[in-house]
Each structure stands twice: as C-alpha cells, then as structure tokens.
C-alpha cells in the first residue's frame, strides 16, 4: 500500500487511474476489464499503464456489455473483485438486465450467502456535439435499484476516494464519472485509509439557501453561489456524492438552517433523482421550508448535438442562479396564478435558462 504523501494536483482522470492502480496493488483478487482498457489504456486513459504493470489482470473485452457485467458478477461471486468499465453511461442500457435482475439481487435473494463485490465504472453527461446516444445522465435509474450502491464523484479527490470506497465495498457499486470533468485538476492525497461508502459534503457553507447538486453541476452550483453572494445571498452548496447510500441527514440539517432548497442536476428534470431529494424534503423538512422547492435539470428532451441547442438545454450557473432567485422571492409566488396546463417543469427549467 502506497505511503500517505501530501496532496498533489491530479486530473480527475488521473485520480481514477491512481485508484485503479491502488486496487490492483492492494487487492490481489482485483481484476480490471472492459472495452479497450488494456492495450489501448482505455478510451479516456483511465486504465493507462495498468496492463503493462499488472498483465493479465487487466484485459480487453469484446463489445458485449451484458457479458462484461455478468462476467464481473460471476467472478465476484467466486472470489474475485472485478472492476469493469462501461465506456458511456448510455451503453448501460444494453445491459440493464445484468444490473437490475442479476447483480443487484445477488445478496438479498440468497439471504446473504452470496455477494458480489464488484465495481462498475462508467461516465456520463453531454459534451459539445455529442449525440443523444452519448449524452444522457441516467443516474435516477440506478438510484431506484435496491441492492446497488451508487457513487457520483464531482472532483479529482472524490474520483479517487469514491472509487476506492466502491472497490473496497462488499456490495456491487456503480461509480458514475463525468467525461467533461476528466481534464479538471484538483488536490488528491494518494493512499491513506479508505473511506466508508456514503456521505454528502458541504462544499460551500451558507445560510440563506441550500443548493444540492452532484457530478459536474457541483462546479456550476458553486459558480452560481458565488454570483448570489455578490448579490448578498448566502448559498450553501452540498455535493451529494452518493445516491446510495443517500445521506439525506446532511441535506435536512442544512435546510433546517436555510429554509430554502434548490436541487440541480444535468439529467432530464422529470423523474430525475432531484425529485427524490425534493420529495424527501417535502416530508422531512416540510416545517422548515419557507419557499417552494426548486429543481433545475435539462428539459424533457433528448440532448441535441448542436451547441446552439445544447446551450438552451444544459443547466448551468445561470439557470441555477435563476432558481436561487425564485426561492428567495418565495412569498411573492403566493399571488402567482397556478399555471392552467400544469407547468412542465422541464420547460420551466428551460425558461429559467434564458434568465
């Protein structure tokens, strides 16, 4: 196990690579496989150098996602600790059966006599010019699957720590990375004790509004919070970090202090995981809330490839700032007539994007 050194600046993708290297060094039963992960070093370089260093424990696979995930499951049930890569989150759709009907049931249905200590890495989100089949944010699907753990790192540090926690976990864990964050750098302390899975983090303290976000939108949320601060509003930004286990206590504690809640994610608004956070708050934090809960997400459309259209679809600091404005002038809403058609929140989000 590598010594604990001081923090160093690493790219998000380098942090992933470091965690994978750590896994192969510290867990002899660890295996890494996926498409183009061995000789080519991974489509995004996450597995760079690992095949050279660890040989057959890191190998390339056919373009067969169901086989990749199922093979990880069977190997995990039989003593290995597979860490697999699904190149894009969109491709998980060809293998959802292996996730929901196979992997996730392993422990429960066997009364705990079988377990599947496997880690599934993927990445998601839009990028300029990417098509609808390479741009989705489907974390809500996984947050709805009991038996599965789901981590979603927003920084190089968490790309390292959350992945290590996932690998060390005895439960099947999905780690959803962000392609657009791969080049971003940040401080990472290599080695050291592995954190238990779970736990949200207050990444910017505040007192007027609680802003919950995850993955790439945490950065946008912080930018929005800074802009709000310039206008004299103190926004507390919480990085959810894990959808399962879900640390709602940290959210509730914050809302108890702020009385206002905004949730922001890149996924399509309707049915996004933001709805779960809002629904819990509407029950657990009801008496603390001074304003309606606002959600920001992509409108309910497939993600278009053209940047001019993406600009109107992908939430950012501006749209989040609009939602912060809405919760701050809450009471004003009282005399706002209820929209006759039952407003499509996705469109609301799109509208506030023009703000």
């Amino acid at each position, binding site marked *: 196990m590598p010594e604990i050194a001081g923090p160093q600046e690493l790219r998000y993708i380098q942090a992933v690579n470091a965690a994978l290297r750590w896994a192969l060094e510290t867990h002899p039963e660890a295996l890494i496989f996926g498409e183009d992960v061995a000789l080519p070093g991974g489509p995004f370089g996450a597995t760079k150098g690992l095949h050279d260093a660890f040989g057959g424990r890191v190998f390339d696979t056919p373009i067969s996602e*169901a086989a990749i995930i*199922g093979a990880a499951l*069977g190997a995990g049930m039989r003593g290995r600790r*597979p860490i697999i890569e699904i190149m894009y989150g969109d491709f998980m759709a060809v293998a959802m059966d*292996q996730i929901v009907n*196979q992997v996730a049931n392993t422990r429960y249905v*066997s*009364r705990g006599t079988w377990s599947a200590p496997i880690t599934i890495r993927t990445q998601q989100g839009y990028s300029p010019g990417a098509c609808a089949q390479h741009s989705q944010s489907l974390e809500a699907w996984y947050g709805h699957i009991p038996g599965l753990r789901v981590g979603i790192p927003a920084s190089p540090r968490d790309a390292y720590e959350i992945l290590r926690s996932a690998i060390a976990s005895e439960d099947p864990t999905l780690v959803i990375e962000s392609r657009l964050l791969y080049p971003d750098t940040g401080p990472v302390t290599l080695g050291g004790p592995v954190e238990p899975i779970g736990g949200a983090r207050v990444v910017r303290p505040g007192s007027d509004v609680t802003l919950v976000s995850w993955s790439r939108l945490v950065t946008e949320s912080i930018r929005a919070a800074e802009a709000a601060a310039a206008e004299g509003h103190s926004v507390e930004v919480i990085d959810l970090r894990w959808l399962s286990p879900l640390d709602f206590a940290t959210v509730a504690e914050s809302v108890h202090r702020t009385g206002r809640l905004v949730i922001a994610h890149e996924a399509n608004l309707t049915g996004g995981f933001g709805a779960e956070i809002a629904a819990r708050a509407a029950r657990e934090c009801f008496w603390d809330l001074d304003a309606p809960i606002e959600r920001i997400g992509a409108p309910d459309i497939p993600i278009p490839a053209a940047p001019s259209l993406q600009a109107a679809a992908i939430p950012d600091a501006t749209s989040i700032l609009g939602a912060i404005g809405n919760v701050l002038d809450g009471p004003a809403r009282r005399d706002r007539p209820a929209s006759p058609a039952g407003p499509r929140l996705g469109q609301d989000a799109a509208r506030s994007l023009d703000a």
Partner: protein
Amino acid sequence: MSRGAIRRRHPGAVVSLEENYRAIALIRAFEDRCSELKAAGEIPGSIHLCNGQEAIPVGACRALESRDALTATYRGHGWAIARGIPLVDLFAELLARDSVLCGGRAGSPYFSSAAHGFLGENSIVGGGVPMAAGAALASLHDGRGAVSLVSIGDGALNQGAVHEALNFAAVYSLPLVIVVENNVYSEMTPIDAMVRIKPLSRRADAYGIPGLTVDGNDADTVTDAVGAAVVRARQGGGPTLIEALTERLVGHYSGDLQHYRPAGELASAREREPLVRLRHAAVARGQDSTYRLDEIDREVAELVDMSLASARTISYPDARTVADHVYA
C-alpha cells in the same frame, strides 16, 4: 451430501442401472410431489418442472467436482437435487419457508446454494450464462482449476446475453460447459419455428468452440459428453456447447394446459423418457432387476415423504427480516 446426492463417476467406472434409476426416480418423485403441493396450494407462485429431462442433470453432475460451479434456470429442481442439495431444503424453499437456502426469498424459480457451488437458478431467460462465464473467469485467475457448467433451454440461444457470454468465454478459453436442454419447446412455441438451424449445436461454430448434440434421455451418454468437455475445460481447452435432446412430460409451468402440443406427442414421449427406458432394460434383465427398481421407488418415495415432512416443520420467514441482506 444428502442421500439424494449423485456419486461422481470416475473415468471408466460404470454406473449401475439401479443407480441411474434411483437418481432419476428421486428427481421425478420430487417433481411429482411439487405438482401435488402446487395443486394443494402449498407452493405459492408458478413452478417449472423437469419431468422427462432428469437424465441431463443426473448425467452432467456426475462429471462435476464439488469445486466446480453450477448455474441453472427456473427449471432447476433436478440440477439442485443432482448437485446434492438436500430435498428438505428445497421443499422448504419452495414452500416459502425460512429455508437454509434463501429463506423463502427466492422460491422455486430463483434459489441458489453457496454451500454447493450452485450459483443459482435464473428466471431471466439466458440471464445466468454471463454469470457462469464469470465463474469460469474466476477459475482462470485463482488457479483452482474449477470448471463452470451452465444449463439453459433451447429458446435461450436466441437471447443476446447468451450470445455475448458464449463469445466472451470462447475468446479467453474459459473453462465453461454449456448444456442446452432442447425440450422441443420454448414455453409454448416450438423451437423449430424460432430458429432456422438444426441441430442447435451448430451455434457453437459461431464462437469457434466445439458443439455436439447428444441423447439427453440417457444419463451415461450425458456424463460421457459433459465429462469430456469438463476435461477439456480443465486443461485450458475452453468452452464446449452440448445440446441434450429431451422432452418435457409436463407443462412449461404449473397450469400450462399444453393445448399447443400435437395429439400423440406426449404419449410417444412417455415411451422415450428416461425412467421408462431403464424399466425396459430391467425387464430384459429379469424379475430380480424389476423388483429392485420397485424397491428403489419405495425408498425414494420414503425419502421424499420424510424430507417434505421435516420441511413442513420449518417456520415461515419472519416479516421483521424483510429488509435484511439488501447490503453488507
């Protein structure tokens, strides 16, 4: 292993007619009892019996060692019994009791037994083949030399996940043996109408692995085929696909009226089924031999009775444990 367990057949060793009869009769008796229990409402949910197909698990499990991995489908009672899972535990699971297998969480179509290297049944057609390939992958890396055997039905060959897993296993020469139980039908549709090839073992060539078609109603034939595949797998020779021809003597599931089966098909199938064949062979050998089989029928019935009786003494799972075991 329980009295129900199969003795492994060592290379060359001969299995007596009686031994084959006992192993098959035990599964048959278990399945028949399940039909009664289902009719009586003692088993909740639908069950998928293997009447007529018993020689396949019996013959195949004889070629396996305890270190090997086994994966089956919802039609897996026979595999579990041939693997040596005690009847009492199976009855308990099927009766939705707090069984040592899955504590009633799995039921008839989805139970497993870690203690027996039985990765489990699977109620998603073909869903267990990738998992079985993974068990073979583990063996490649832990050096324990275990082989992974998976049973699927004829219709499962048309599932994408099966295709992916077979190619995956072929590419790394994984120690995997795929047994395709061709029982003529996929649920209520004849497999002949759903593929354009015959025999189904031709599919093996698409992966560059050996494929063969054998008589699935003769346990020794199955043992020979699976045994050879297991040896090849252990020696690094990679996967083998074995199509075992057989016929269902009962419906696809409890309550299947089988109106889709042509007249006379079942009647003639009953002449070809494993137990009847062994009976004929015994008759040819003379009275002593047939008496012996009658005796086995009694012993087997007794074992089934005893097992069911003790299964019935096991309590139902406690509702307060409903949320246990979701996570470590």
